[in-house]
């Protein structure tokens, strides 16, 4: 319960205005992107056609005709889905172990996992490229993209799940032990049903991170496993910037994830604020 505080009339008006301004600032790039995607490349760079222009779908039709948008999209779906599933497959048992059977080193392990996120990705770019291309021969494969996406998100996945699992009273797990469930049963019959909301929002967030990941997906793929990030990057053409085309590709790349996020926003917000108040 919020405390009752006095609010001036000025406050009643000013805060919503500030909120709207902030929201618009955040939304503006997206708006601009979508707006520009309906202009021709010529119109897109001309200031006089900023708002007055003839809308065209040309950029979108070109996209499916010239670059096979769907292949990139399917690659994104495959890599993001499997990376998320694998991350959960490893993350749920790991977080379970740390939440319910902590050792003296659990805190250190959690910190160590998080510390891997502090490593600049560029620092391992050369070894990664060399290893995957010349040594393992898995460069530009779905397998590689899935493994990389899974691993870079795993620390966050484990941290999030750990926080959710911590909220579950230890006694419930112990009651399960008394009732004779084994470790797998504890996870399947007690933990997962109880932490379902948390697991779902973790999955959703991981999926979004995977989908939007660009650094590795751009550098470790060429054609076969290239994702939508690569498609956007590919349209940053050397012969100059085709803003209309680039905007259309970008819009088409972010559309699925924005739609997914829109439908799941309740789940997302609940998941992200769960535990903050209790």
């Amino acid at each position, binding site marked *: 319960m919020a405390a009752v505080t006095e609010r001036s009339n000025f406050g009643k008006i000013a805060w919503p205005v500030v909120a709207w301004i902030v929201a618009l600032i955040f939304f503006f790039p997206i708006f601009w992107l979508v707006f520009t995607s309906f202009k021709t490349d010529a119109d897109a760079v001309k200031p006089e056609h900023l708002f007055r222009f003839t809308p065209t779908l040309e950029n979108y039709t070109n996209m499916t005709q010239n670059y096979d948008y769907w292949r990139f999209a399917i690659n994104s779906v495959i890599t993001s889905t499997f990376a998320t599933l694998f991350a959960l497959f490893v993350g749920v048992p790991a977080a379970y172990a740390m939440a319910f059977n902590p050792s003296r080193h659990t805190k250190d392990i959690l910190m160590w996992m998080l510390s891997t996120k502090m490593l600049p990705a560029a620092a391992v770019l050369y070894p990664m490229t060399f290893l995957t291309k010349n040594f393992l021969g898995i460069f530009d494969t779905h397998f590689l993209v899935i493994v990389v996406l899974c691993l870079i998100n795993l620390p966050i996945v484990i941290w999030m799940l750990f926080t959710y699992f911590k909220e579950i*009273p230890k*006694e*419930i797990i*112990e*009651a*399960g*032990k*008394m*009732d*004779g*469930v084994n470790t797998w*049963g504890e996870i399947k*019959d*007690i933990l997962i*049903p*109880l932490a379902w909301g948390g697991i779902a929002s973790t999955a959703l967030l991981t999926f979004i991170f995977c989908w939007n990941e660009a650094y590795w997906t751009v550098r470790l793929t060429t054609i076969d496993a290239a994702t939508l990030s690569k498609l956007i990057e590919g349209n940053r053409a050397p012969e100059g910037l085709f803003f209309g085309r680039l905007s259309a590709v970008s819009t088409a790349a972010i559309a699925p994830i924005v739609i997914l996020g829109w439908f799941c926003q309740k789940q997302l917000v609940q998941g992200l604020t769960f535990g903050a108040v209790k």
Partner: protein
Amino acid sequence: MAGLTLRNVVKKYGETQVMHGVDLDIEHGEFVVFVGPSGCGKSTLLRMIAGLEEISDGTVAIGDTVVNDVAASKRGVAMVFQTYALYPHMTVYKNMAFGLKQAKTDPAEIDRRVKGAAEILQLGDYLDRSPRNLSGGQRQRVAIGRAIVRDPEVFLFDEPLSNLDAALRVQTRLEIARLHERLGNTMIYVTHDQVEAMTLADKIVVLRDGRVEQVGSPIELYENPRNAFVAQFIGSPKMNFFGAGDIASTAAAALGKDLPSSQEVGLRPEHLTVCDAANAVVSGKLDIVENLGEYAMVHMITDSGVSFIAKTEKPPQAHKGDTINFTIKPELAHYFDAQTGLRA
């Protein structure tokens, strides 16, 4: 059906030892209460019997079987947790059936047992509800029901009443007593509330700092506490303690013996009666009177500055600061060594 035998049971967390060699014999059908202040190890001991904590040394046997290395669910024990620990995502029925399902019990048998337990606990109308929609008392009954359906040799209760309000606590206490009468199983019950211990137990185990201070029936502990700690822990309000310098000069005559300086005398508040100065065992100045109608708690301070309480039938006709003298029947006085606390 079985009793329990604990032999030299030790619990260590790393280098820290929290249970120091507990020996205990519990007979079949006994209602045993572990009591003691917080941190005394009573819950740890219960959890070691349950199989939720490893036993660092010594043995726990249920019946004739040493269960040190037997999984919690295979020990023939069932536990009722302080927080109930119901599965929030399952209905009352499923909560009770879960353990039997894990044991691959025949569904018809599960149904029979769950319905049987629900009848005993008057939960019949609530079987399809989720725990969220139950009151605290009903949740507690489901937790007990979950234990009953497993038909255990030994019931373990870990402070089962501490989350209930005062009225419900008294009622549930009675229900647990009735349940014990009806089922006749061995029950071990942990509490820090000595009233629960006194009312429920066949046998009380008083623990302090991971050691058993005394084992005995409630009345034994009340009448013959082995040391000052047990004397003070059992009984409400607490027993009053006085050194040789705190009692009245006429005390030796009234008690029939001198109090050596190496000893303390313990006098229960309910055994003190008001008397004239000539027969006083202790006297002091009146501080506060709490009048509860059926009796009064008279808070006193001796001239030497020791606070004590007398429980009298009627509040004394006196004002704050007035001197009141109390005496006691000599056989009701308890003597303890001032150094060791042991009964003298």
